[in-house]
């Protein structure tokens, strides 16, 4: 009852903002530089004055109801990327709603052929972040011109320089900062772009791979390429690749469309392998767990798997959410929420939420399971134990050993539960092959009625629980190995580990196995951002396999998917992967040693490796900058940071800032961003990028959406960034313009005149994106094309863009880029913001219409056969529970710190963007808190509202070290609540900025005051544990490569 008056506080906050929140700071207004041009400003004011005098009711009704004031696009305030409807008034984007054509935002969605004049009146749902996109677009701290640092990195002192000068400087290099007293030669991109010959790159790539695999000697390689050794980073290690790899692109967020473009540019045009997204600071181990569980074996090789499944929540009867939910974060609230609230309200659905914090999702749960962080596998294995003991698994499903057997029993998927695994002295190893016992070739083997059977094409069912010796080889079924792992501890022992009472474990296990296939074990970030993240994920997937719910109505689904924008299915109108004249063939180990095996490299020198290798994962964000600092496997020369903030968003991000601040380590750092971010503040140059609502993209849909959908992001206003000229064409400064400008200077293949082939230039961003959209318009198979836009829709298309300048919308130029024969189809798509599969009775009946129809791996052979690159011991092929470990594989013990730190996302914020800069949302949540159980707080002498410092084993001073700036104390406000597990503290994201408009910026000698509202709250990352072995990075899951966000113990010191 301590919470009784909380609601009143919120009411006060919403009813009238305290006057101190809007203090008159008398800031300098610098319209010409930040926040758009003075010209736009003047226009708006004039318009305002005119309107103030004429304010009678508008003839023709409400302008925002009219189709000619609507442009459909796609949000990116979070990665759910909801299709949106952007409403334009007097040339200004003023209101954002959900796109009613999209099943992600409305079920059933409007039929694709619905007239845009009807759709304009129907707003679909979108979350508060999506609506507040207006405030990210029109952010007064946006940069619109190119900045070059005018002080040490991080000093936040800048000068404005012309775009062309900036491009020349980063391309040519030189003594770029001599005027600041830095007598250092900065190598330019021209020095890094060494390998320029397509044929040579192809031959070298092939042979370097052979060298890595030990199939070619280094000396043979050197002899063969003796005239070209200067293009390599290290001729003694050709498998490190060309010098070109020393340009690294690090993306905080890049989506489909832009992603394919950036990969094409960096890989095929510049010949560097070092392209990275942020995935390991998000939830990568969950993707890797799914990938390993869904890889298919064919012709002696394990292929690629699926990265993501979601429950068919519209039809589920029970869902257990591990470390996630449906209201905040995940993938994501608008598509998931209504399916679940409807299910709860009608009584169709029950949910359980596993989370140390009572989230908004847990608030709706039948059972809230406040688990000890990082013990999800223990809970899942406890459930598995009970399920197996009580024979609550689907034996019929599990016994089906191949596709034919699954088909015979009306299943769509099957598993390797019955497949035999060789038991080696150091544990379970390879799956047994028929050839090893003389009953066939490369097939897997099951035992049926005591006899081994090869798993061929005919239906095969196997014995589920088997352990024995066949032809002298000790074997067990995958199921038996899982069973033994689950039975290795009693329920009460598992309960002690995970902190969930036995009764609750039994209740959820019973519920999970009481609804047939209409159940799902769902996860996202919570269970996997741990050093044991992959295994936690694997254990959760094992629950789904045990009930065989994949592809079933109400079970787990890979979603409706999308049409393919690269044109690689239909091969027309633009088969873009093939349209790259003079393409270079990138090669070499990536800086993060991802997708490479240590054992298959010339750097192999026994265990431990110098830093870990990650053969299973990719996009290992937290390893990029620290690896460059260690020069392992090689140093780098230039880093391009795009829309990202590794120094803030990564656990122990301060270690990255320390490296970035020293130009001796990475001589050239440049950025593309819409603001001066917390990390891009440490760049040498920042190029202004277009904001989400000003640019193009073809984002893909969450598997939560059952229907097929291809979303199209498109410009809704003239970008606020400066106009630059590239390849003779006027365009707005953006990531794409920077790529093309570098392409122009270095004559990169695949850029410029005939960049896509004869007569197909690549000189503006539209040349790329409109081709993607043309591909979507034609679909993946013959006969899938969308209709041509009618004459009136063509007219509408033009009218809706009447406010855009020619630099942003040039219909003749767009038509040329899209292809005359595709143009009207492209318009049909753009008038709807994408293409959308209609809802039909089939979805009603089957739920999961687009099925996965492949095998599931309860046992991951690839993982079992890989050694930990530091510890030298094999990983486990089956889900296990293990405690938090460092890079060497040693258990971390920080018991003297009494509390465990976790993070979460409020619905109002993304990880490092949105709050507190979207002022509508920061009016609701002006700062974040250190959430702690009220009783725990009282024991520590802390009470609600106190301020406390976050102190950890690797941050004993509780300071965020910011090189070349004042350090930021890790201080937050205590919020003592009931809805937290005792002994755990939670700090949400979004807050604790020093960049992003939070502090003063000096540009051309003028000081632009920071906004105090943007500096509130606490980001807990600098408290997160630095790995004791690596010493310059956080801890990491050795398999899935997720960075460890939740394994840190902390103390709170009252201040």
């Amino acid at each position, binding site marked *: 009852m301590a919470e009784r008056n909380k609601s009143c506080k919120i009411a006060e906050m919403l009813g009238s903002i305290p006057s101190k929140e809007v203090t008159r700071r008398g*800031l300098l207004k610098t319209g010409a530089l930040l926040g758009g041009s003075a010209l736009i400003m003047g226009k708006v004011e004039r318009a*305002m004055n005119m309107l103030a005098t004429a304010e009678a009711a508008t003839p023709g*009704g409400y302008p925002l*109801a009219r189709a000619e004031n609507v442009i459909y696009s796609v949000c990116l305030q979070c990665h759910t990327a909801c299709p949106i409807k952007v409403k334009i008034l007097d040339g200004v984007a003023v*209101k954002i709603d959900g796109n009613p054509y999209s099943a992600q935002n409305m079920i059933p969605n409007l039929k694709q052929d619905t007239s845009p004049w009807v759709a304009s009146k129907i707003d679909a749902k979108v979350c508060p972040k999506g609506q507040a996109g207006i405030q990210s677009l029109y952010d*007064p701290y946006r940069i619109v011109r190119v900045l070059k640092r005018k002080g040490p990195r991080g000093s936040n002192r800048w000068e404005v320089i012309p775009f062309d000068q900036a491009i020349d400087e980063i391309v040519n290099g030189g003594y770029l900062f001599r005027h600041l007293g830095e007598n250092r030669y900065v190598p330019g991109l021209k020095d890094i772009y060494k390998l320029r010959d397509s044929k040579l790159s192809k031959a070298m790539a092939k042979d370097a791979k052979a060298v890595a695999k030990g199939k070619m000697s280094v000396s043979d390689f050197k002899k063969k390429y003796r005239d070209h050794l200067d293009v390599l980073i290290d001729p003694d290690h050709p498998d490190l690749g060309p010098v070109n790899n020393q340009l690294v692109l690090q993306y905080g967020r890049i989506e489909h469309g832009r992603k394919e473009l950036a990969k094409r540019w960096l890989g095929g045009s510049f010949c560097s392998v070092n392209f990275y997204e942020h995935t390991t600071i998000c939830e990568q181990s969950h993707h890797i767990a799914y990938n390993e569980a869904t890889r298919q074996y064919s012709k002696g090789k394990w292929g690629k798997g699926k990265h993501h499944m979601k429950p068919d929540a519209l039809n589920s009867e029970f869902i257990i959410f591990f470390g996630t939910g449906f209201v905040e974060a995940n993938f994501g609230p608008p598509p998931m929420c209504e399916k679940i609230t409807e299910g709860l309200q009608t009584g169709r659905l029950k949910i359980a939420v596993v989370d140390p914090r009572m989230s*908004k999702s847990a*608030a709706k749960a039948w059972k*809230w399971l406040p688990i000890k962080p990082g013990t999800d596998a223990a809970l899942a294995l406890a459930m598995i134990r009970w399920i197996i003991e009580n024979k609550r698994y689907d034996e019929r499903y599990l016994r089906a050993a191949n596709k034919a057997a699954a088909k015979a029993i009306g299943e769509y998927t099957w598993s390797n539960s019955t497949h035999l695994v060789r038991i080696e002295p150091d544990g379970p190893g390879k799956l047994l092959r028929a050839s090893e016992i003389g009953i066939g070739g490369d097939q897997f083997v099951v035992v049926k009625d005591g006899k081994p059977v090869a798993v061929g094409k005919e239906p095969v069912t196997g014995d589920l629980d088997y352990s024995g010796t066949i032809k002298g080889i000790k074997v067990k079924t995958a199921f038996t190995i899982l069973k033994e792992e689950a039975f290795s501890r009693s329920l009460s022992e598992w309960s002690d580990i995970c902190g969930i009472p036995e009764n609750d474990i039994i209740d959820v296990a019973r519920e999970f196995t009481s609804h047939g296939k209409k159940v799902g074990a769902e996860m996202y970030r919570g269970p996997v951002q741990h050093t044991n993240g992959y295994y936690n994920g694997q254990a959760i997937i094992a629950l789904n396999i045990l009930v065989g719910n994949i592809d079933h109505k109400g079970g787990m689904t890979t979603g409706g998917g999308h049409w393919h924008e690269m044109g690689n299915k239909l091969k027309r109108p633009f088969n873009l992967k093939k349209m790259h004249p003079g393409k270079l063939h990138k090669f070499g180990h990536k800086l993060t040693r991802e997708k490479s095996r240590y054992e298959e490299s010339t750097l192999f020198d026994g265990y431990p490796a110098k830093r870990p290798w990650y053969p299973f994962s990719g996009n290992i964000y937290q390893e990029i900058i620290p690896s460059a600092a260690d020069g392992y496997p090689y140093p780098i020369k230039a880093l391009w940071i795009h829309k990202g903030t590794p120094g803030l968003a990564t656990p122990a991000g301060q270690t990255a800032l320390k490296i970035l601040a020293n130009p001796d380590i990475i001589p050239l750092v440049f950025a593309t961003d819409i603001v001066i971010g917390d990390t891009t503040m440490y760049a040498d140059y920042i190029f202004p990028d277009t904001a989400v609502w000003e640019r193009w993209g073809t984002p893909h849909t969450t598997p939560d959406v059952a229907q097929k959908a291809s979303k199209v992001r498109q410009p809704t206003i003239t970008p606020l960034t400066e106009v630059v000229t590239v390849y003779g064409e006027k365009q707005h400064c953006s990531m794409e313009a920077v790529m093309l400008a570098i392409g122009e200077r270095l004559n990169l293949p695949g850029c410029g005149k005939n960049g896509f082939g004869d007569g197909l230039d690549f000189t503006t961003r539209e040349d790329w994106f409109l081709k993607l959209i043309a591909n979507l318009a034609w679909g993946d198979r013959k006969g899938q094309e969308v209709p041509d836009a009618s004459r009136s829709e063509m007219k509408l298309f033009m009218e809706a863009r009447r406010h855009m300048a020619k630099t942003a919308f040039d219909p003749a130029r767009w038509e040329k880029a899209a292809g005359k024969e595709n143009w009207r189809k492209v318009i049909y798509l753009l008038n709807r913001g994408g293409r959308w599969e209609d809802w039909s009775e089939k979805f009603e009946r089957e739920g999961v219409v687009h099925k996965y129809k492949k095998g599931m791996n309860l046992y991951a052979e690839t993982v079992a056969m890989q050694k930990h690159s530091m510890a030298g011991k094999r990983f486990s092929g089956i889900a296990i529970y293990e405690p938090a470990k460092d890079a060497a594989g040693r258990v971390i013990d920080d018991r003297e710190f009494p509390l465990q730190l976790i993070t979460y996302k409020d619905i109002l914020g993304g990880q490092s963007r949105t709050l507190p800069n979207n002022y509508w949302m920061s009016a609701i949540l002006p700062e974040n808190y250190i959430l702690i159980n009220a009783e725990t707080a009282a024991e520590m002498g802390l009470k609600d509202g106190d301020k406390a410092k976050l102190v950890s084993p690797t941050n004993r001073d509780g300071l965020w070290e910011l090189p070349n700036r004042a350090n930021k104390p890790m201080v937050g406000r205590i919020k003592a609540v*009931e809805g937290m597990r005792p002994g755990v503290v939670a700090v949400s994201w979004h807050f604790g900025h020093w960049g992003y408009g939070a502090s003063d910026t000096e540009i051309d000698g003028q000081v632009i005051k920071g906004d105090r509202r943007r500096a509130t709250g606490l980001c807990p990352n600098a408290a997160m544990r630095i790995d004791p072995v690596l010493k310059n990075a956080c801890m990491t899951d050795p398999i899935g490569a997720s960075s460890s966000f939740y394994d840190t113990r902390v103390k709170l010191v009252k201040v």
Partner: protein
Amino acid sequence: MAVNEIVRMHEDLQRALKKPVEKRSWGMVIDVRRCVGDHACTVACMAENVCPPGTSYRWVFESEYKNYPELDRFFMPGNCQHCDNPPCMKAANSHRKGAIVKRPDGIVVFNYDRLAGSSSARRAAKKACPYYAIVDDNGGYYTEDTPKLEPYETRVFYEYDRKLSRKKTKGTIRKCHFCVHRLESGMLPACVSTCIGRAMYFGDLSDPGSLVSELVKKEKVWRLKEAEGTKPRVYYIGFKDRTNIAVSTSATCQVCHQ
């Protein structure tokens, strides 16, 4: 789920708009069991109506009830209740005639000019409203002290058939108007369209075929502070009990209401 409730409510709306205004009876239904406290409605309202900095015409209260680990967590949304016996109207009009009027379709209308001219009318209205529904417009902008006053704040917006700007609403008091500008263009209120949990419903209570009428009839509905005789046009359904969402428990309401 096969019936799209948004489309259904749009159809209800089209039917209502064919009737003369005095035959319409606008009403809102809020199913608290489905509110997830995400504030999509709050922010939609701020954007649609260009609410003064720090305010919205809507609230979503939040509260914990009971202790770890048995607790519940609640979300309670609301807005102007468009009372048929509006205490604000009585109070304000005693200071300034016609400051607040009641439309025949049920919407309670603030006359901004009249209210701006009478601080006593404004004070009285705010004091009389038992629902936290009224906000002050003291002028000011979110971005006024930043490098740029942004155009989404200085833009025109539409309330009660009027084209307004913040310059015009400065010094008055404001509140939810059921997005009447949207209604009359055939659109649902912004909060209703955007509710991600589908807790919000809107329509013509005088049309027995409308979704809101159906809900009022079918569900156990209640209204806020009915005892005060305000006769609100906003109906609530249920209160969530975490262990059984389909059951209403009045006990939980005691968290906020003694």
